[in-house]
């Protein structure tokens, strides 16, 4: 059995690598020959712990797809600033791939698509299935290898899955949930909205904690022990909802609600509150007199180089007239949005002479920073540490004014 993945950006590459790790012959196709050449040379387009393309058969020739029993269509779907998906590149890839796929092969759309998309494809070509991706930036390889379950969208869930596809999925050793196309497409959105709901509760109550003298850090563990909430619930206070995909899915639900006359005002409120919490550092800095700031972390979360929807960039954008030095272990410094930011090559270099510092991405290595060393490097003493990377007591002992989310 040979499985192909088409579209070698984050989703396709990680999913292909996971399949290859299971011992399945895996073809990795992208029409961009230069991209394929770079991956062959070991230059991966994404930063993910444990990601390797070594076991993949990489190709830019669509004719190679003729050898495959299951063909995944897996490019990342870009989202615009107004949280709309652009599925045109996905559609182009499908059109390019389709003539080369064997008649008895199964085609699986793995990219996230709006409800109704896959059924329209299936009406054109009954080889199509849809499979929900649940990648998490920074944990993508692990989750692709060991999914909690696999959700499969089909025209008729009562029918057995094609043999090759079913035997490939069986290798993941997890529950397989076939359902109609629309349910599967909406299941993906439902997962993200459940996460958004939890994050919104967390961020709302964290803000209230700051006003009441409570500490969300004390409350969250109590909630995790509640069986109805659970140990893995998204209860860490953050700078808004974060990440582009959850925001995109909230926008999709709002749009679908408007189209079908469903009340989605609660989802609109999540977005509004998310925007507000994203500006938490800006609100605190406005109360201080800051002419130079050091920013530790630019990526939107740890273990990724992605700056899409990064709170650090939002902060920098709101800091006109303030000198900014920043350090991040992974992001690409060629990005135009960093044109006016001084590139520090070490965390303490970003802290040097700063009136305030903001730890905007909870990279693991920042936990090893000694508050005393930070205090020595800084001119001022204001430390905005939304994710509680540093130890509060040690910061206080070093004379730092250590502010975190969810505690006064």
């Amino acid at each position: 059995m040979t499985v192909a993945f088409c579209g070698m950006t984050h989703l396709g590459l990680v999913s292909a690598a996971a399949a290859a790790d299971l011992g399945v012959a895996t073809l990795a196709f992208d029409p961009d020959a230069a991209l394929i050449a770079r991956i062959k040379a070991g230059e991966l387009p994404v930063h993910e712990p444990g990601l390797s393309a070594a076991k993949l058969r990489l190709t830019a020739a669509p004719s190679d797809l003729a050898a495959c029993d299951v063909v995944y269509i897996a490019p990342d779907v870009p989202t615009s600033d107004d949280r709309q998906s652009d599925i045109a590149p996905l559609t182009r890839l499908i059109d390019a791939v389709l003539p080369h796929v064997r008649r008895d092969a199964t085609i699986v759309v793995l990219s996230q698509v709006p409800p109704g998309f896959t059924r329209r494809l299936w009406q054109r070509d009954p080889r199509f299935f849809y499979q929900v991706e649940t990648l998490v930036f920074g944990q993508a390889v692990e989750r692709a290898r060991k999914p909690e379950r696999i959700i499969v969208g089909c025209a008729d869930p009562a029918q057995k899955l094609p043999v090759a596809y079913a035997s490939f999925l069986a290798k993941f050793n997890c529950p397989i949930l076939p359902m109609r196309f629309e349910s599967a497409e909406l299941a993906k959105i439902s997962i993200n909205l459940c996460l958004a709901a939890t994050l919104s509760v967390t961020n709302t109550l964290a803000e209230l904690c700051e006003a009441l003298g409570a500490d969300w850090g004390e409350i969250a563990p109590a909630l995790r022990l509640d069986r109805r909430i659970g140990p893995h619930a998204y209860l860490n206070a953050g700078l808004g909802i974060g990440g582009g995909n959850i925001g995109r899915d909230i926008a999709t639900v709002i749009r679908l609600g408007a189209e079908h006359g469903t009340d989605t005002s609660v989802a609109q409120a999540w977005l509004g509150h998310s925007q507000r919490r994203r500006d938490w550092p800006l609100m605190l800095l406005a109360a201080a007199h800051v002419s130079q700031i050091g920013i530790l972390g630019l990526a939107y979360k740890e273990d990724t180089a992605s700056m899409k929807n990064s709170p650090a960039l939002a902060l920098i954008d709101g800091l006109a007239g303030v000198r900014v030095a920043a350090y991040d272990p992974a992001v690409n410094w060629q990005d135009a949005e960093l044109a006016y930011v001084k590139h520090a090559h070490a965390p303490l270099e970003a802290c040097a002479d700063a009136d305030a510092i903001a730890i905007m991405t909870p990279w693991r290595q920042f936990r090893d920073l000694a508050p005393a060393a930070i205090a020595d490097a800084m001119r001022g003493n204001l430390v905005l540490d939304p994710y509680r990377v540093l130890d509060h007591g040690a910061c206080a002992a070093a004379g730092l004014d250590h502010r975190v989310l969810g505690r006064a």
Partner: protein
Amino acid sequence: MSRTVIVGARGFVGGAIVRRLAEAGMPTLPLGRTDIDLLQPDAGAKLAAQLRPDDAVVLVSAEAPCRDAAGMVRNMAMVRAMAEALAAQPVAHVVNISSDAVYADEPALVSEDTPAAPASPHGAMHRAREVLLSAAVKAPLAHLRPSLLYGAADPHNGYGPNRFRRTAAKDGKIALFGEGEEKRDHVLIDDVAELVRLAIAQRFAGVLNLVTGKSVSFRDIAERIAAMADRPVAIEGSPRRNPVTHRHFDVRARLKAFQQFRPTPIEDGLARAAAPLESVR
């Protein structure tokens, strides 16, 4: 530097704006009712004759508070004159002084994104004024919505710092509605004038709430004023007739628009407002 025309320059707000712009060395043309009575039929033409294409115009004139239909009609006549003047003589920038009364009285966090839903004739007047000016003005247009104003020269005697200061001085007491639990955002007139200056300097367009972002209770203000008085002041509560409501403002839009601005803390503002009226005038 281009000139700023202040329409309604003799009032509490207009006067403060004129003084602030003058302090900042900005040329001004202050116009009061004695210069142009906006209720007169020829007011639009008269005002247009005073304007130049590179002017910034600050529209402060209003009959406030607007309490009823007759007040609304007079205020709309004034807006008509403003709109006619700005149509006849376009200018470079227009700043309309509106009010936070355009928002509904709901216990919510208010931002510029909060839909305007005025419940009072005064709020409806300001909202109508915003809508009519937006329809008439082609230049960059700012609607600035101050919250509850206070300052030494305030001629109004509304519930709040100004009245508290006067009754404390005159009668040795401050009367509260209920126990004065309601939290409101009280903004010092000097801060409003400074924000208007910044809006003109940066040619700000759009809606902005002129607020501090820190709401305090009426009791808190009463206690601060009592503490500043040179004689004992009794703070008297009264049976509550209306439920307690609070209003807080989200100031992120202001932070982004005018990063250099710092609102005057209430304790400093009350001290400044406590200066004798004569010394301010």
